[in-house]
């Protein structure tokens, strides 16, 4: 069954990519949806099978890579984490596939799109199912490849191709971290299998040198990998650009699944991370900073997808923060909820864009509520979920993270504070998005003579949205924090579910004692209420600023009084430019220098110089070579005569 | 027969050689008139017309034989003209250079068995050589110079082209010619022409029967070597006016004529010698003939007659073929020489050698 989960999308990709006739869009769409839906069905079976026993199970495929002592079998594992992930991937994947059929209706090469998309699902499944680092890495880079292909799906535009390339390359930087992590792991542990590593860590009561140090480097390396894939500072730059791809892609890859791979990986290796507190601090800081950083950028963006993209970066920051403070379960839970509501938001935004004929600038929207009622409704749910309105899924997950951050012994309150601010920003920009898009007066395009009225999308596009909206509300209740759950006599189902997987290795128990320590519920209540208050405040401000009026208020205030700050935010802190100026351009100049000067002049020059030297020498030696046949003949014969004369004596 | 004691062997031979040479020279000089007559009368016969038959004394017209004589006289006494641009020396020399090898060729042919005069055995060839065949080949090779020089010295387009063609042709066909002779040498085991003749003691040992392919090749080469139809490209009148002797007139032209007919004669003789038993009369052994006639000399004379008859047949064949076959194209000519005759000749040599080795 587990193989079927993998096989379906692969088959779908192959069929769409190589085998099927390419004319029929319906066929390619049907095949793609069937492949993912089939995979989803199988994934459900697999999950249920696992859920019944709660015992992780290994599936050996074949002996993939073997050299020296190194072995990396193609082996899959189904446990709490991967079971959940395959559900997310195939489930949300199915919805998005269905939706994509409508969204990509006008495309000619839909087969290509669906082939990539199915391939992506396959790779993502491989990533989450692999039982060793190497198989995971296959999926890890595989999804990067699909992301590259899908971002550059509209390759006719140079910018899209460049964005795809940027995504791939920035990811590759992270991948190198991942690779080095693998090397280090193999060096110190002699294996790359999760199960073996896990049991090794589990059995070690204490870690002597060199392990602590090694673990620091190992986890740091892996974290670099995670930074790349999960768009953390400083490697987040690819994700906003990745919005160049079709919106379903953004929903599936750049919101719901692929970008969370870093969190997934860190959770997989939680036993390592727990054992490396120094790294954890770095992780937490990076996560928190990313959350705030991206959120501030999102405040002023005008492109609807860009806002969502930065929002994604910010939310990923939350997840990483969760990992960093040791709350992997909270991180994964946020992953789950985020997958639902961010996919929802993206698809909703996609519907808007679709309805607006590929207009993405929010300033040119407005008042769409009347035209797109369903979309509006689901978007509203999504926004409420993401900003953490109580009762919606985001509330539970985000709150858990903030709480865990707060109790983190090192700089805990500061981390909480950053997260808290970010939550406020989130509320502001998401509501801003909603207001600009759906409320207020419609934008009057003076120049457009044939204004099309936006229409609600067909059922197979809004259908998935509705499902996702329901999920965005519903999944939150899986992970109600303990102190709330206790009110109704339950407990955090999700954390409980993951308990078997995420454990603190024996050697690191001391450092993470606070996670299990009893804390005052009042504090927790207080924090929760304060964040609710902040969210309300921010949302209210946004509503005040952006509804039914020309853009003003905070935004215009900011723009008016702090123009440079506003500009800085608009320019996304000019990080891209900085990278371009400080890294890419110098590197290109160095390359040119190496080529034009070092290679052509110096090295090749030396080689040629030897040749010229020889040529010159031969020139000196050949001055008697007059080229006259007669002279040569004369000397030959004269020599002969001389020899004869001499020999006669 | 009376001994002449004052003469020793060498002197006799020298005198005999001079005499023989003179005889051959005189004999050879008579060939062209006769041949010209033949060349006029035979086609006339073939074409059912009369040909030149008017010239004569009174009623004796001698079937037109005298026409030739008249022509000869005319040729010799005609005014000579030398082209202004010609290389004079070679222009004058060329006909002689052309004639000389053919005369040498004829000199090497044994016209009959040795005769006895005054107890001296005198062979009936001007030069008796152990390597007669090689000598003939060598002389044939040198024969090209006449043509070549004539064409070149005339310093005219047609002449040059004609001579280039002629000499290329002659060189090309010399090779199959030589190759065709090798089987005979292998079979009879000698290069001496007299020995070769003697080895063909009976009709069935004639070269034509022992090595028919050689004969075929030789026959073709014979025509080519003498630039006769169908290989007369070098003087193809429709293309090159008259080829290498375009610029020649009067006596020098006559010399060329002479050279050509002597060459024809020599090759006919060689053909008879090599393939038809030379001076041997078919079915009559030489000893029988000697005993029959009672004199070596008369028998030898009969032999000479036999050889001349055989040669006459080939001379006639020349004429016959000339009036029967059209001319080849130049590339065809070369193709036949290099792509057909040469491989055939080589194969012939190999096969003969193998057969001989097998028999031995």
């Amino acid at each position, binding site marked *: 069954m587990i193989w079927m989960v993998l096989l379906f999308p692969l088959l779908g990709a192959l069929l769409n990519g190589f085998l099927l006739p390419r004319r029929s869009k319906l066929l390619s769409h049907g095949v793609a949806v069937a492949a993912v839906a089939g995979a989803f069905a199988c994934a459900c079976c697999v999950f249920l099978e696992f859920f019944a026993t709660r015992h992780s199970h290994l599936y050996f495929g074949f002996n993939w890579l073997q050299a020296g002592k190194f072995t990396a079998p193609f082996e899959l594992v189904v446990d709490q984490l991967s079971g959940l992930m395959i559900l997310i991937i195939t489930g949300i994947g199915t919805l998005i596939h269905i939706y994509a059929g409508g969204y990509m209706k006008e495309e000619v090469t839909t087969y290509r799109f669906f082939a990539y998309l199915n391939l992506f699902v396959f790779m993502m499944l491989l990533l989450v199912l692999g039982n060793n680092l190497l198989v995971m890495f296959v999926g890890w880079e595989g999804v990067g490849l699909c992301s590259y292909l899908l971002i550059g799906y509209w390759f006719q535009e140079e910018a899209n191709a460049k964005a795809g390339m940027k995504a791939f390359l920035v990811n590759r930087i992270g991948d190198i971290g991942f690779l080095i992590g693998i090397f280090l792991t193999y060096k110190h542990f002699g294996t790359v299998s999760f199960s073996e590593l896990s049991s090794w860590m589990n059995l070690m009561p204490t870690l002597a040198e060199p392990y602590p140090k090694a673990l620091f480097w190992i986890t740091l390396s892996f974290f670099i990998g995670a930074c790349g894939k999960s768009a953390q500072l400083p490697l987040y730059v690819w994700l906003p650009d990745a919005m160049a791809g079709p919106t379903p892609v953004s929903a599936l890859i750049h919101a719901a699944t692929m970008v969370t791979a870093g969190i997934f990986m860190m959770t997989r290796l939680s036993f390592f991370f727990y054992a490396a507190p120094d790294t954890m601090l770095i992780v937490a800081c990076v996560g928190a900073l990313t959350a705030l950083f991206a959120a501030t950028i999102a405040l002023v963006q005008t492109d609807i997808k860009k806002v969502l993209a930065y929002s994604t970066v910010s939310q990923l920051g939350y997840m990483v923060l969760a990992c960093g403070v040791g709350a992997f379960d909270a991180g994964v839970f946020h992953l789950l909820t985020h997958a639902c509501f961010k996919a929802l938001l993206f698809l909703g935004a996609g519907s808007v864009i679709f309805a607006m004929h590929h207009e993405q600038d929010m300033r040119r929207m407005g008042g769409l509520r009347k035209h797109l009622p369903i979309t509006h409704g689901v978007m509203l749910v999504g926004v409420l979920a993401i900003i953490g309105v109580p009762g919606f899924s985001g509330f539970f997950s985000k709150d858990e993270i903030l709480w865990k951050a707060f109790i983190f012994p090192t700089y805990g309150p500061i981390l909480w504070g950053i997260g808290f601010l970010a939550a406020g920003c989130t509320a502001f920009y998401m509501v801003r998005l909603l207001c600009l898009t759906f409320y207020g007066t419609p934008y009057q395009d003076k120049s457009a003579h044939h204004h099309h009225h936006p229409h609600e999308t067909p059922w197979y596009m809004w259908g998935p949205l509705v499902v996702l909206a329901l999920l965005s509300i519903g999944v939150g209740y899986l992970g109600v924090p303990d102190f709330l759950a206790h009110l109704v006599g339950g407990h955090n189902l999700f954390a409980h579910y993951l308990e078997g997987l995420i454990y603190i290795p024996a050697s690191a128990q001391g450092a993470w004692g606070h996670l299990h320590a009893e804390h005052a519920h009042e504090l927790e209540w207080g924090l929760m209420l304060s964040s609710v208050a902040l969210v309300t405040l921010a949302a209210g401000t946004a509503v005040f600023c952006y509804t039914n009026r020309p853009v003003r208020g905070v935004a215009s205030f900011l723009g008016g009084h702090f123009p440079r700050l506003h500009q800085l935010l608009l320019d996304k802190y000019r990080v891209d430019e900085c990278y371009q100026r400080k890294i890419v351009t110098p590197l290109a100049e160095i390359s040119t220098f190496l080529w034009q000067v070092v290679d052509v002049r110096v090295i090749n020059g030396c080689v040629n110089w030897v040749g010229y030297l020889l040529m010159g020498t031969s020139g000196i030696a050949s001055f008697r070579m007059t080229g*006259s046949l*007669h*002279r040569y003949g*004369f000397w030959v*014969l*004269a020599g002969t*005569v*001389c020899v*004869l*004369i001499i020999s*006669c004596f | 027969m009376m001994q002449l004691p004052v003469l020793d062997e060498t002197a006799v031979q020298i005198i005999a050689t001079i005499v023989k040479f003179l005889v051959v020279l005189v004999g050879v000089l008579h060939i062209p008139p006769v041949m010209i007559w033949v060349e006029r009368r035979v086609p006339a016969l073939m074409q059912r017309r009369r040909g030149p038959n008017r010239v004569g004394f009174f009623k004796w017209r001698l079937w037109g034989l005298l026409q030739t004589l008249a022509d000869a006289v005319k040729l010799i006494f005609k005014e000579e003209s030398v082209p202004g641009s010609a*290389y004079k*020396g*070679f222009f004058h020399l060329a006909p002689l250079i052309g004639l000389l090898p053919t005369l040498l060729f004829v000199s090497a042919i044994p016209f009959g068995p040795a005769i006895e005069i005054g107890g001296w055995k005198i062979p009936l060839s001007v030069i008796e*050589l*152990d*390597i007669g065949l*090689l*000598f003939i*080949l*060598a*002389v*044939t*090779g*040198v024969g*090209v*110079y006449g043509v*070549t*020089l004539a*064409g*070149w*010295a005339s310093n005219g387009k047609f002449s*040059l082209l004609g*001579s*280039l063609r002629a*000499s*290329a042709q002659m*060189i090309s066909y*010399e090779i199959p010619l030589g190759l065709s002779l090798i089987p005979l040498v292998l079979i009879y085991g000698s*290069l001496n022409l007299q020995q070769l003749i003697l080895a063909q003691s009976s009709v069935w040992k004639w070269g034509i029967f022992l090595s028919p392919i050689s004969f075929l090749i030789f026959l073709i080469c014979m025509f080519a070597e003498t630039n006769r139809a169908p290989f007369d490209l070098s003087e193809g009148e429709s293309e090159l006016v008259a080829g290498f002797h375009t610029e020649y007139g009067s006596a020098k032209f006559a010399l060329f004529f002479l050279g050509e007919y002597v060459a024809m004669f020599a090759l006919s003789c060689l053909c008879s010698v090599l393939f038809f038993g030379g001076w041997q009369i078919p079915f009559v052994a030489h000893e029988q003939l000697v005993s029959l006639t009672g004199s070596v000399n008369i028998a030898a004379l009969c032999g000479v007659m036999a050889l001349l008859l055989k040669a006459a047949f080939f001379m006639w064949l020349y004429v016959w073929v000339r009036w029967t076959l059209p001319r080849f194209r130049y590339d065809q000519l070369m193709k036949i020489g290099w792509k057909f005759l040469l491989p055939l000749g080589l194969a012939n040599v190999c096969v003969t050698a193998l057969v001989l080795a097998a028999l031995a």
Partner: protein
Amino acid sequence: MVEVWFFYFFAAIAVVASLGVILLRNPVAAAMLLVVTLCALAAEYVLLGAEFSAAIQVLVYAGAIVILFTFVIMMLNLGQEEVGQLAGFSKWALLLFMLGGAGVILIQRLSMGALPPGVPGGAASDNTYEVGMALFTKYLWPFELASLLILLALIASVVIARKPTFPSRDA
């Protein structure tokens, strides 16, 4: 002693003709004189009892090689005005050379006693047969190799003399 006189006679012809070869301006004349030299040498061979050699000398040299020369001269149509000057370098060379040559001959002449005594009547009776036997027994392999060589030369000369495939100097 007739042979000796004959020898001198032909030797004189050979030397004079060969001088003509190198001195005459007209290449055709030179070629003709070369033929004369060769024939004279062939006569010398006969005098030396090498009839076979004489025959092939005429057959190959005169009948083939010099014909080739003549051919080429005619084909390139080299008028006598165009060619035949002496090389500029020649005077010194010739002088030195002739002196050297004379010296060598002189010395050679003086040291003649070192030569092995001749075998009287040494030439075999059936010269051709002997040569043939030597060629096909003792010298069989060299002979075969030589045939290969001549085949190569044949092909090579065809290839070299073909119409040029390289661009001419002006192009």
